[in-house]
């Protein structure tokens, strides 16, 4: 997983959440940091930024728990 992917994802999330502090391991779902609306917005941003298509069956909590989980999911989509 590339560091710059993590950084880009962090930037996207910070922009969505009014610059709230977030890092690679911040619990995003368990803490309620991101809700379902945020995920929908985030997926659109990820698709645009990384030129990937995120299928509906990948939008599961396991792929969005942390920035690192999101980056792994994005990487997987890049490889398909």
């Amino acid at each position: 997983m590339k560091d710059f992917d993590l950084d880009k994802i962090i930037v996207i999330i910070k922009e969505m959440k009014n610059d709230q502090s977030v890092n690679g391991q911040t619990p995003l779902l368990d803490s309620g940091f991101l809700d379902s609306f945020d995920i929908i917005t985030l997926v659109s941003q990820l698709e645009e930024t990384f030129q990937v298509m995120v299928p509906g069956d990948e939008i599961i909590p396991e792929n969005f728990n942390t920035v690192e989980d999101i980056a792994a999911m994005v990487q997987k989509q890049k490889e398909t």
Partner: protein
Amino acid sequence: MSSAFKKVGIIGNGRMAKECAVLLNAFDPSGCKLVRVVVDGSKNNISADFEKYCQNMASDYIVSDNINNDETLAYLNSGDLDFVFSINNHQIIRDALLAIPVGGIINFHNGPLPRYGGLNACSWAIYNGEIHHGVTWHYVSQGVDNGDIIAQRCFDIEPDSTALKLVMKCINEGIGLFKEILPSILVGENVRIEQDPTKRLFYYSRQIPGEGVIDFSGDYASIDRLVRALNYNPLANPLGNPCGMVNGKVFYVDKVRLARPVLEGIPGQVLCTKDRFEIQVRDAVIEIVEIRDEMGMRVPVKRLIDKYDIMPGMKTEKR
């Protein structure tokens, strides 16, 4: 009513239930207290917003995949409830549950009742070419979506709105309306407007806009409406994506755009396939911008053109 402050329950799930719970918990405690929460466990929710909120607030709640079962009824009965709000609740409320709160059960519906009752109101509104939509808070009665109306809020449908975008707009509008009407409900001063049954428009779960099939001999506007009505991206689509067929193979469409308002071929004919998938329809040339293969997987348009061997001059077929 049973106490000076009103005892309130919520049955539901998702962001909307969470935001309404936030409003209830922030309300003057001498006015109301949220004492019972049933998280509708019948459908998966991407981030389980409502349950997470209850956990974080250390609220008393249960998760129920059958809100009418004995356990759920006993839990709600023990709350001595004045009102229950049903918010993004996907389960039918039966008589025994309906009888529990003395002030009734109040439901949120993402359509302007009595129009667009039933399921998938946002998809049907887009498909039918509505330019306005609305949300309704209403009492639950023994029928479906036919109880007295407490409040409605109407708003425009954006010309490029998809079903999911309209659902999200309904949720935001519904939360705002909830904040407005809550004080009057709690003091029993809300209005009750009987629904006019002659204006009722109702859709069942078995109904799908356009049967889910694109007629490429139709006009651009109707094709665009069908595609947007069945677009729930990025979430899984509850109705199925609209399909077409060419060269004997099925494809599904997520997005079209008007390429040129001209006639360059026969309606239904493929025109250009180098790196763009263009089809002549009745009144224009349209481009399929986002597409899925026969498995329903989103793929780049160019990849699908190559995989399906699509050539100019081919005719789209009716599935």
